[in-house]
């Protein structure tokens, strides 16, 4: 937290502070301007940011392009949904089960996929995510393709998740927690091993690090936070469906991390905001002619990404000027 405060003295620190301030009081703003819909978008931005920060732990800091990260939206979400459909509404039960399921799945996928490199790693993580996707689409008892309407997790006497503002603030606090952990992780002994392995894994092995073990731990950790995002996403819409974990969502998460700035603390946050703001503004803009062009907002978004890839390799984060320390 001290590092966070120290960075306030730089321009980029001010930008971060401003973003976090707006997020902190977003429910008050949307209420004041009577824009309930914006709170819903804000909630999704916060939840997706948690997922993006968690993907950044392995993609940005570890250099491991996992193309199946949205599977943790699905696993976290379905764990909550299936328990809820069976009458188990308590969040105290649902949430730990959902995190545990995400951790187990991440450990399994990591143990197999981390033995490969490059394109093979991408393909295996994608294949495992698709596996879960099709299994969920085949769950007749839980809505199959159509998904499942659920009631929100209950933390009786503590917080009512049906209250949009309370739920939003819970998500925001969890995002802050995730960011805090990531900031510590990045400069810890563990984080340096993960980052060192991204830089040169042969060298790290030759130094005496069992690189596979550390990568597996990072992959699992990343899955745990991804599962948390899944839990929140299920509660946000009171609904789970296979679409939560389609490969398109995994692709979106990668785009967000790359767009925001890989291996930077706040990059995933910038990326998520940019992604949602562009989606929400391009759609109505393209739809001005009422010809249904809004669906094709990515035709505009795509070239913007190409420009970022060509001219701002460090993503939005690098556009904010040099990093301090």
């Amino acid at each position, binding site marked *: 937290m001290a590092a966070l405060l120290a960075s306030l003295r730089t321009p980029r620190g001010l930008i971060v502070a401003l973003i976090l301030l707006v997020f902190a009081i977003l429910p008050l703003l949307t209420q004041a301007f009577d824009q309930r819909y914006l709170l819903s978008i804000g909630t999704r931005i916060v939840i997706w940011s948690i997922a993006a920060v968690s993907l950044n732990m392995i993609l940005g800091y570890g250099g491991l392009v996992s193309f199946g990260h949205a599977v943790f939206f699905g696993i976290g979400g379905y764990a909550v949904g299936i328990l809820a459909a069976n009458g188990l509404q308590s969040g105290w039960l649902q949430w730990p089960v959902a995190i545990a399921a995400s951790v187990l799945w991440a450990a399994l996928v990591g143990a197999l996929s981390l033995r490969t490199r490059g394109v093979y790693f991408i393909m295996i993580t994608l294949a495992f995510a698709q596996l879960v996707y099709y299994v969920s689409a085949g769950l007749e008892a839980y809505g199959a393709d159509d998904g499942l309407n659920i009631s929100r997790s209950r933390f009786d006497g503590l917080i009512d998740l049906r209250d949009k503002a309370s739920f939003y603030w819970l998500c925001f606090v969890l995002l802050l927690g995730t960011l805090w952990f990531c900031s*510590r992780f990045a400069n810890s002994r*563990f984080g*340096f091993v993960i980052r060192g392995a991204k*830089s040169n894994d042969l060298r790290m*092995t030759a130094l*005496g690090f069992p690189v596979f073990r550390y990568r597996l*731990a990072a992959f699992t950790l990343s899955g745990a936070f991804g599962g948390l995002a899944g839990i929140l996403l299920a509660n946000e819409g009171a609904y789970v469906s296979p679409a939560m974990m389609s490969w398109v969502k995994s692709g979106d998460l990668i785009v967000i991390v790359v767009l925001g700035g890989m291996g930077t603390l706040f990059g995933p946050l910038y990326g998520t905001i940019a992604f949602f703001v562009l989606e929400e503004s391009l759609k109505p803009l393209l739809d001005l002619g009422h010809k249904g062009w809004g669906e094709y907002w990515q035709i505009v978004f795509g070239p913007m990404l190409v420009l970022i890839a060509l001219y701002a390799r460090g993503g939005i984060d690098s556009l904010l000027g040099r990093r301090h320390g």
Partner: protein
Amino acid sequence: MVEPLLRTDRLIKRFGGLVATDTVSIDVRPGEIHALIGPNGAGKTTLVGQLTGNLAPDAGTIHFAGRDVTRLPTHARVRLGLARSFQITSVLREFTALENVALAVQAHAGHSFHFLADVRRDETLRAPARQGLEAVGLGARADTLASVLSHGEQRQLEIAMALAGDPKLLLLDEPMAGMGVEESQRMIGFLQALKGRRAMLLIEHDMDAVFQLADRITVLVYGRAIASGTPDEIRANAEVRQAYLGDEAAGPA
């Protein structure tokens, strides 16, 4: 007779029909510099790969520090005290020189499953790393990114990283490769100063360096160790002169 620190026993490695390591038995005794020479394609890199654990031999055994390490993974051999430098410079380019060495220290300081404490303020890693950098003459470059260091400095940095874990044996794969005359001489001087305190297996093309440094030399040709002995014995060996050294080293050198 002193128990050797590293010993290979009839090591064999085949690639298809090619026998890259042909029944090689060599050893390195504590404190000595044992040089491995041989023309290109003699199988030096293949042998090094088996010693470090990057390649699995088809037959034979490798003993290190009293243990059979033939099937041990690379990182476990490093933990036992077998450190290496690479033929092609291999440093962590995105990290500072100090961070490179600090990571090498960290590799030998127990497990790294510590997620919260800031490694950049960890004097238990940084103090020995700073000493290591000063020992190789890079003290003034501590906060420079490794990618910005000159080629010679990167080679020095590699040595500092290899020494950080206080290894029993240094496996130096062409430490002078790509260095200028002056840098080579500095490196030779440095290795000379280390001599006696650390066993080294030196793979090197620079014959001047080999004959200056080595206590014993083994000559590898087509995967076979055709000769092994003191520098004088090797210089006098007719088979070696014919196979490899030519007139260059047979002369006054």
